């Protein structure tokens, strides 16, 4: 109660006066103070907050500026806030990086959403090739006997045709699986062999698709901001999303074996527990989740 009253008063009145007083004392605007006082994810996220809360139209619009217009936008901000580039030489560079990170995150969500929204289509040659690639990466020593075959169950699809397993994750699920198998082949093989464990086994491909949903939802809810702000000094790309997915898959496998669930029927409970753990890690402004080999 007191906290929310304080937050209201602060946001409404005190914030303005605080900024004004600090500006007089330090002779710097809020953005400059943030750029100097903080680094990495904390800096970008504080800048994002300051811009969003700003009453100045130029600053407000900066969080959704186009990728190519970032440079221009920084110049406009400096004009607007009377920042002398000679007095604060690093501001321009730092601000540019922050804006690339902030706008890049939004763009990344749109890009990921686009891939997710394209359903797996078995009439699309590109989709079919990706599926075949997944097989050959995971089962290099075994040939697929037919396009529709029970062999798909060996890599954890539900039935004899994987196309129905992608569902709400569309092509994104497949692209994620292929990326993991291609860029972390040894780890993917290790995880696949774990998934065939007689008692602790699970279904590799559909767990993978489920984890695509986890990565996607975290991205959508902005929970990955600190992580991407810390790991990418610019606009995060699809590649960075895949990297995070690989981290999730590898860590989930480890988590599953540590927890030793009674059977696959408890998957959702353990998934929830794993998700809570990841969400906890992502709250730290210094967070950086990468697959360490």
């Amino acid at each position, binding site marked *: 109660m007191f906290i929310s009253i304080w937050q209201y008063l602060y946001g409404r009145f005190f914030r303005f006066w605080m900024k004004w007083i600090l500006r007089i004392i330090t002779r710097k605007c809020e953005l400059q103070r943030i750029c100097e006082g903080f680094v990495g994810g904390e800096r970008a996220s504080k800048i994002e907050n300051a811009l969003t809360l700003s009453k100045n139209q130029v600053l407000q619009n900066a969080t959704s500026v186009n990728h190519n217009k970032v440079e221009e936008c920084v110049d406009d901000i400096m004009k607007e806030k009377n920042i002398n580039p000679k007095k604060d030489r690093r501001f321009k560079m730092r601000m540019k990086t922050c804006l690339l990170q902030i706008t890049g995150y939004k763009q990344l969500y749109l890009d990921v959403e686009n891939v997710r929204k394209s359903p797996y289509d078995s009439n699309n040659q590109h989709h079919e090739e990706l599926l075949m690639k997944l097989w050959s990466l995971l089962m290099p020593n075994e040939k697929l006997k037919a396009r529709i075959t029970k062999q798909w169950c060996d890599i954890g699809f539900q039935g004899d045709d994987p196309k129905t397993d992608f569902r709400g*994750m569309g092509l994104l*699920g497949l692209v994620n699986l292929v990326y993991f198998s291609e860029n972390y082949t040894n780890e993917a093989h290790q995880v696949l062999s774990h998934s065939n464990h007689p008692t602790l086994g699970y279904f590799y491909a*559909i*767990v993978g698709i*489920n984890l695509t949903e986890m990565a996607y*939802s975290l991205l959508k809810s902005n929970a990955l901001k600190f992580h991407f702000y810390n790991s990418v000094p610019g606009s995060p790309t699809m590649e960075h999303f895949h990297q995070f997915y690989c981290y999730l898959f590898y860590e989930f496998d480890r988590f599953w074996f540590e927890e030793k669930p009674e059977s696959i*029927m408890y998957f*959702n409970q353990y998934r929830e527990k794993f998700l809570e753990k990841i969400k906890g890690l992502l709250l730290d402004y210094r967070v950086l989740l990468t697959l360490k080999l």
Partner: protein
Amino acid sequence: GAGSEPRTSERCKERFSATPSSPSPGPGGALHAVIREWREGPDAQCGACSPSRAPYPQGLLSILRKLKSAPDQEVRILLLGLDNAGKTTLLKQLASEDISHITPTQGFNIKSVQSQGFKLNVWDIGGQRKIRPYWRNYFENTDVLIYVIDSADRKRFEETGQELAELLDEEKLSGVPVLIFANKQDLLTAAPASEIAEGLNLHTIRDRMWQIQSCSALTAEGVQVR
């Protein structure tokens, strides 16, 4: 709820004993009449006889009303069917949740839904072949079995029929009313409920209340319970 079950199934048996043994009762036949009697409201129609006419009748509610008369009762509903039949979409639709991010179900999902004085505890169990042996762990105390069929997946009609037949033979599910959802009616290639009913020989079910219902879990047609 166990006390009311024998009564309903007993009554159901009586009704079915009046059904003539000859198959394919046309419109106005005995089967039609029995099913129509279960349904309520002026739009009542028999899913087996005229499945494609919109609006879809509300199958689940009519079964619930037959099952339990007192309000504020908990009903345990078991959702089964092959993988990709649409069980989770149906579950989320019943709970008015977003259905655009669904992935294959590993294990099970459970949701509680309030509907017209009933508290529905809906258990959605994964349908892939390798986890079907676990289905039996969820049979106990089931009030209604909802069996979901992908009406467009004709290649697996036989497989889904076998699974259903095995379920109906289960001792722990004996007498439990079964509602069959002929799902994915939004697809052009979907078989009508009447064809599915005939293919599955549903008219031979004599030991319990049953219904088949055309629906599309995607568009929510035929699945509303509110």
